């Protein structure tokens, strides 16, 4: 393991007294910063910092063939790379399971919430549709890359502009953006990831806390279209071998809804 057992023990002792090294409460996020438009060549982009954790996400849009079972819908692909420059523990090479899992959690949140109106991304049914690629890169890992990545992906999608499409050549004219944004709905998805250390449940772990964590469970939530007060869970992913009791899962599900509302508010104030 990367951090010492002594450090883990100390983290545990602190948590038993409801304390953390950085004085936060167990269910308190660190400072969140969102910056959009960080890349000139992406159709949309964002940089998100949660404490010392930093990720960037970029949206590229191309024209592609639709899936045979969704002939009139655009496509979505989410890929994450955990860059070696962002942590001494990440190594070069094709995405490993950690990166694959992270991307798939974000993907499921985006997809299941209906945040992107895929039907409006159809160019020619059965032949051509717009394909949305969201690429996420870790720049500095100090824990909670999942929540930071989802936030970055959503922020990048919100600022994305559709590229110009040449109907004759049936090709995208890259570098020329229209003033039109992506067809997005109000069901903005956010993930909240919970960690279990001993009997304590906490959110937004530092990398030390994350390494100490035995159980992880991520929730992606959004507001139900039509009924704004109705918050739904769009995705859950339990990670690590540690098991959870049924009761714990119910408690965490309720907490997830509370934290979703809080995070939503914090993002809104960021946007002015």
């Amino acid at each position, binding site marked *: 393991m990367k951090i010492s057992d002594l450090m883990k023990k100390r983290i545990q002792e602190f948590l038993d007294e409801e304390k953390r090294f950085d004085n936060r409460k167990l269910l308190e996020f660190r400072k969140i910063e969102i910056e959009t438009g960080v890349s000139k060549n992406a159709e949309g982009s964002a940089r998100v910092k949660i404490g010392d954790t930093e990720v960037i996400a970029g949206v590229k849009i191309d024209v592609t063939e639709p899936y045979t079972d969704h002939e009139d819908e655009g496509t979505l692909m989410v890929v994450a790379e955990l860059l070696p420059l962002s942590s001494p523990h990440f190594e070069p090479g094709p995405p490993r399971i950690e990166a694959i899992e992270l991307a798939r959690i974000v993907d499921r949140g985006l997809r299941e919430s209906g945040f992107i109106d895929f039907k409006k991304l159809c160019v020619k049914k059965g032949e051509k549709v717009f394909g949305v690629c969201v690429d996420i890169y870790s720049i500095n890992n100090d824990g909670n890359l999942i929540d930071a990545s989802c936030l970055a992906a959503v922020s990048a999608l919100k600022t994305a502009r559709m590229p110009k499409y040449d109907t004759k050549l049936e090709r995208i004219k890259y570098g020329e953006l229209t003033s039109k944004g992506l067809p997005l709905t109000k069901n903005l998805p956010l993930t909240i990831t919970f960690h279990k250390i001993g009997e304590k449940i906490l959110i937004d772990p530092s990398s030390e806390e994350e390494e100490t964590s035995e159980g992880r469970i991520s929730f992606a939530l959004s507001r139900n279209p039509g009924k704004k007060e109705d918050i739904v869970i769009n995705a859950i992913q339990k990670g*690590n071998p540690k098991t*959870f009791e*049924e009761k714990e899962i119910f408690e965490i599900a309720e907490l997830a809804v509370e934290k979703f509302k809080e995070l939503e508010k914090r993002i809104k104030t960021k946007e002015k």
Partner: protein
Amino acid sequence: MAYTKRIDGRKFNETRKMEAKVNIIKNADGSALFRFGDTIAIAAVYGPKPLHPQHLRNPEKGLLRCNYDMISFSVSERKRPGPTRRSQEISKVSEWALTPIVELEKYPNTVIDVHIIVLQANASTRCAGINAAALALANAGIPMKQLVSSVSVGKIDKKVVVDLIKEEEDYREGEGSTDIPLAFLSKSGEISLLQLDGKIRPKELDEAIKIGREASKEVYEIQKRALKAVGEEK
């Protein structure tokens, strides 16, 4: 239209016909088949055996390694052979689902390889795979205090159902389809697998897990029977 009747006529809390069989692959140290209706998975266990490369060895406990994949003609549109992002993720969650039952501290420096192959797919493949793998581990004689029993639950429109079939997974009317693969430890009742895709409120999730727990008990009975059957043959 509300989902008042299941596509295949089952009750909402009824699983498909289940079948379990152990000792199906001679070469393996343990093996099993598990079936939910048209979904068939087989699993084989090799090990414990020395772990290579050596630097991965843990002197405190062994490693459980899962590998899940589907054969190319297990689905209607040919699946290209080889690992995909999906199969890699399922391998990992299956590993997490099974690790809590295996007493790995008894086998330091070793690895136990669990290979799960889906022969035929009609949803709930990871659940069938985990059930087969748990049986294969028991069949291999690996010390375990309890078994893992896995089942999928879901919400179709507004109705909570057990053991979804593909057509239910693809249901798009009303509130659509939510798929929740679950795994429970047979004795402690703890949850070792929980994933979800779709749209569900916390209260409904509550209900779904409760129904899943009941169904997992039926899975457990089938698993137990399969393990007993081996003893009787010999």
